[in-house]
């Protein structure tokens, strides 16, 4: 099946059998392609003893740890074909992932994202309220996953405004005029989970300003680490937002995604479950031996995407832990696997005479 027909598959329409067939045929082809076109990938597969010529179930394809993208330039295209290099967010001093995209891969990622998001906010562009400051895309030093995320999702907005000013304060007059102008229309809100909480929810609570966002749909991502430290659960998050702006709790959607597999994001449905779309899959593995966990059993998350042509990132082992909750039977009606993220895996506590954290000295 060619990539265009694949991208025309409604993202949550394939059942277990159909999806497995699709993933198997695409992933085998991708493994062969990357084996032939990426020197480093070939050496890795040779060392692990993986024969790309054999037909292998996609769950048996060796997974690369995502951190390898921080250390190596993994790409299956020539330098001339690179149209975009994506980098992961990372605090200063940390190394960042470098992801090389060619025209096709980049376009396919955008198309996949469009299909996925459309199934939540509709296929028509709608007025968009970005819950961040425009600084985040202006300032090149800050340009990171946050900026890339905003730019990526901006294509769903007809008219766009930034809810926060340069000092990260709510721009109340601007929001008020915007909502007045688009009264009765669906409003698409987008932001990073912690920013939404810190600079939107908290500011609304503080200022007493209560915009009417009962027509709003919020998509947010970026992780719960900071909110968990404030003991804010997903349920609290939704209810609190509903309290201050009337946005329906079932119109608030978290998503899980990473720069190493841009586009194929995992959206949270009305039931609070993250869903794998037709173009990608999640597997959960036991750390002990990398065998597949049962549904309901926590383990390391592996992500599989069939869109990646420019670099060998089609089968990756993340450093996040998660739980598969079920497949094809989420009450929301979407097919495919649905799951929950349990957070990042803990760093090792290592004994021995070589200090592991020299920064302590």
């Amino acid at each position, binding site marked *: 099946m060619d990539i265009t027909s694949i991208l025309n598959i409604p993202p949550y329409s394939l059942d277990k059998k159909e999806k497995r067939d699709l993933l198997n045929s695409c992933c085998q082809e991708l493994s062969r392609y990357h084996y032939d076109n990426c020197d480093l990938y070939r050496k890795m597969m040779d060392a692990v*003893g993986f024969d790309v010529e054999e037909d292998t179930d996609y769950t048996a394809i060796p997974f690369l740890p995502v951190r390898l993208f921080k*250390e190596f330039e993994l790409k299956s295209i020539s330098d001339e074909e690179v149209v975009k290099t994506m980098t992961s967010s990372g605090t200063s001093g940390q190394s960042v992932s470098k992801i090389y995209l060619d025209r096709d891969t980049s376009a396919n990622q955008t198309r996949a994202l469009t299909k996925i998001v459309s199934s939540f906010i509709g296929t028509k562009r709608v007025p968009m309220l970005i819950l961040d400051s425009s600084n985040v895309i202006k300032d090149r030093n800050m340009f990171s996953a946050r900026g890339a995320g905003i730019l990526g999702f901006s294509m769903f907005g007809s008219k766009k405004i930034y809810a926060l000013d340069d000092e990260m304060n709510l721009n109340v007059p601007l929001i008020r005029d915007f909502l007045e102008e688009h009264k009765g229309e669906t409003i698409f809100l987008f932001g990073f989970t912690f920013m939404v909480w810190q600079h939107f929810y908290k500011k609304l609570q503080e200022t007493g300003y209560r915009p009417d966002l009962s027509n709003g749909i919020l998509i947010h991502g970026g992780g719960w680490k900071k909110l968990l430290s404030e003991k804010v659960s997903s349920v609290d998050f939704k209810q609190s937002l509903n309290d201050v702006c009337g946005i329906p709790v079932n119109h608030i959607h978290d998503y899980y995604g990473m720069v190493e597999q841009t586009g194929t994001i995992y959206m949270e449905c009305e039931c609070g479950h993250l869903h794998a779309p037709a173009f990608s899959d999640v597997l959960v593995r036991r750390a002990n031996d990398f065998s597949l966990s049962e549904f309901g059993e926590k383990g390391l998350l592996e992500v599989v995407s069939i869109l990646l042509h420019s670099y060998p990132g089609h089968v990756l082992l993340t450093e996040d832990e998660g739980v598969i909750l079920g497949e094809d039977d989420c009450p929301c009606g979407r097919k495919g696997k649905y799951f929950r993220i349990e957070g990042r895996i803990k760093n090792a506590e290592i004994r021995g005479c070589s200090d592991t954290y020299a920064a302590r000295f």
Partner: protein
Amino acid sequence: MRKSADVVIRMQQGSENIKLLFPDRIDWDVWRSQRSDVPYSEDVISFLDELSNALLHDKNARSYPDVMTFAFFCRRANIMKCKEQTAIKELRLGRGVLFHIAPSNVPINFAFSLVAGLLAGNRNVVRVSSKEFPQVDLIVNHLKSFSETNRWPSVLQRIALVQYERDDQATSFFSSFCQVRIIWGGDATINQIRKSQIQARSFDVTFADRYSIAAFNANEMSDESLSSLASSFYNDTYLFDQNACSAPHLVVWLGSAKNIETVRPIFWKTLHDIVKEKYNFQPVMSVDKLAAFYRQAVSMPMKRVETEDNLLVRVRLDNLSESIEDYKCTGGYFSEYIADNLDEVAKIVNNKYQTLAYYGFKKEDLEEFVSRNQLLGIDRIVPIGATTDFSFVWDGYDLIRTLSRVITIK
């Protein structure tokens, strides 16, 4: 007047971040102006023997095998044996003040470093890890109870145990008056500490990042010996997460192909059983090992050896690359190579190599191996199971001699 005097005192004490674990109070000016002692003085030996006794009879200490090992090490009989081995004939005195920077992840190491400093005749400022370890508290408590009952004041006054988080000011303060600075903790720590100057005549004894290997002679390995051998090897490696500088990362097999084929799988299987039973495997280690494997795979031809799970990861090398030392991982990750003879290994040995752990070789053959190949590295060759045994000769330094000075009289 009063105010400025306070300021002066505070400056003398180096930094407000320094927590004094022992003794309760200290005037650094007075403390550092004490005299040095001769190596292996009777006072220190008796003090260590009494400390050993106290620890061996302390119920709380029994659950810490590392404290027990330390206690046994400090017994008079063992110290006398060390004294005999050191065999000092010349006139020596301690160099003065030693500033020890202990590693952050080995709780008991500070105590061995301190003992070496005391036996060489010095005053010792020991910076212990800023992490909390019960092993440290145990030893500190015994020192305190000695102090309260006025036991061994002449020795105790030569001990200062301090603790502080990363603080260059504190490090600079102790560096400014020490004669020798002993830096454990590897390259990154050494580079950090070296930003603080020491006096012109002072010097550093550094314990840098090292690489260690093991060699097995399959011809000498029997089914009966494998179980205890695997258990010893476990102590060499997993016991300290394969992160001790002496822990082997490369395993070289020698002997007939037939013998290797027979004993090798049994050895790893036996080791794996022990690991499964004893080792606290942390989930992230599986990712660490997988990443290490792929990292190594891009730089040298190699094959993954099938193992039962991630507790033990084995890599088969077809040839020995000089860069092998760059590809190691903690928590049970081994590269393996079958060699025709030990001399093959000599080619890759550089000065980063510390310990060669062996089984099934004669001491004479090993001596011959070292001199014939004029090795650039390897400071110690010890039987499997003995890699972490502390000795006053460590990393190629004879600590008692290094930490004392010779006085010649003609």
